[in-house]
């Protein structure tokens, strides 16, 4: 199976062909996928070199000039390094862009912590008005990329698409907005985000719990969570492929009208300082099926 990142250049190349307002800005990373697109659209595929502040600033300028910019690099360099540009050049200027990241939380474990960004969604959470897509499968990534680039009538929405090498076996019919109900039960609600759905389904096998699947986490689908807790009770476990607790506040806000409990599972805050393989990092953060089952049953009993 190809990866979400493999889909990025072909899908966006198609959008470059179809929509003259679309422009792609790269900072070296990912440029190989756009060789043909650069030949066809030399003014709309822009590689600024290893300059991530310029990547975001130039994206904002493109948007001010009426374009729909797609900005891409690794999550660490896209969200964290030029964060003030994300805050001011997009948010404060009141213009939009589609930020598409690769590498996610631990996609290249041998690369070490310099190329890991488990805090990206939490950092974006300090800003207003961002839509955050966390696809769990390459097919979902394709759907959500199209949704992101075309978002809104004025196409000025601020959208983050988080592409990961971590993936579920099957794609679900995501719509860029709502959580999907994957399983229904009466003894709690587990929200699985993006690539962690397979592990959550395995972990909750035989348990009487509702499983919601979230591939779009901002805006947080409060209605879906409230609806699920009506039948399954207000004990909620969030399982997220980035910093643990990132969506805990959103879940608490959604359930402010009822007594509730929320457990936020995800990537640990402490730097692991390990290399190895993706699966080893998933396990080290307690996000493999066996660890999840232990922690979920410990919380819901």
């Amino acid at each position: 199976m190809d990866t979400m990142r493999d889909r990025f250049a072909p899908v966006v190349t198609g959008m470059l062909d179809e929509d003259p307002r679309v422009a792609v800005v790269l900072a070296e990373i990912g440029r190989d996928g756009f060789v043909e697109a650069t030949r066809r659209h030399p003014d709309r595929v822009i590689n600024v070199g290893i300059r991530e502040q310029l990547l975001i600033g130039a994206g904002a300028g493109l948007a001010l000039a009426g374009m729909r910019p797609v900005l891409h690099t690794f999550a660490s360099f896209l969200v964290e390094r030029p964060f003030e540009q994300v805050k001011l050049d997009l948010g404060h200027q009141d213009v939009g862009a589609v930020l598409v990241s690769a590498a996610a939380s631990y996609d290249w474990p041998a690369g070490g912590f310099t190329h890991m960004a488990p805090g990206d969604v939490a950092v974006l959470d300090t800003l207003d008005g961002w839509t955050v897509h966390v696809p769990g499968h390459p097919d979902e990534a394709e759907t959500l990329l199209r949704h992101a680039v075309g978002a809104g009538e004025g196409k000025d929405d601020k959208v983050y698409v988080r592409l990961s090498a971590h993936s579920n076996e099957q794609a679900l019919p995501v719509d860029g907005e709502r959580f999907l109900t994957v399983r229904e039960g009466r003894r709690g609600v587990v929200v699985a985000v993006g690539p962690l759905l397979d592990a959550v389904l395995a972990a909750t096998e035989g348990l009487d719990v509702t499983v919601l699947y979230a591939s779009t986490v901002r805006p947080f689908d409060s209605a879906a969570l409230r609806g699920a807790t009506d039948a399954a009770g207000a004990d909620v476990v969030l399982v997220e492929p980035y910093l643990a607790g990132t969506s805990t506040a959103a879940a608490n806000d959604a359930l402010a009208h009822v007594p509730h409990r929320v457990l936020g599972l995800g990537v640990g805050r402490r730097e692991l300082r390990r290399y190895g393989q993706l699966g080893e990092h998933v396990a080290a953060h307690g996000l493999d099926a066996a660890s999840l089952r232990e922690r979920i049953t410990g919380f819901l009993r």
Partner: protein
Amino acid sequence: MTTTTYGFTELPELMGLMTGAEKHGPAATSTLDVLWVLYDRVLRVGPERMEDPERDRFLLSKGHGPMAYYAVLAAKGFLPVEWLPGFGSYDSPLGHHPDRVLVPGAEIGSGSLGHGLPIAVGTALGLRAQGRLDPAVWVLVGDAELDEGSNHEAIAYAGPAGLDRLHTVVIDNSSASHARPGGIAARFEVAGWSAETVDGRDHDALHAAFTTPHPGRPRVVVARVEPKNA
């Protein structure tokens, strides 16, 4: 809204409406002559053209001390003179740093240094990508603002990219703590820009520098004014 038209000699009076005095700090007046020459003689903009995609763009990156900017915008009819006395107050659209969402005529909001030039690069790219080869993009930065690394990313990219509709004005009032080795213009020239340094108070010299052809290259004009701390 008043229909009175204002000239350069009335600008101190307009600035006085904001500060309560006709003497102003260097941060406010260092840009006054450059702004006036641009808005009076160079930029193809106007209050009625702000939705026109073919208009020239002026991006004030150095958003500190914007009284001269507001005075020029008022003089040229972008915003009512009646707004000026409210400068900085809760109900005023005119803050100590400009906000494009609130200020008619402002292309960007600024205050945090080092954002305008990268945004101007993107604006020039966006206009070029749409086949709009006529509009000029202008950005005003300060000499100390050039310390921000984001500007160096933009300078280093724009030259080789041949963004010949991009123009930077550097107001040089010698305010950088560590002067740029080789001088400001040299920094741009090595990156492939067309560069000239002129007296920032000499309107004809500014106009000549602003209108000098620079085919295939972006253009920087370093406008020297009296030192900030002199």
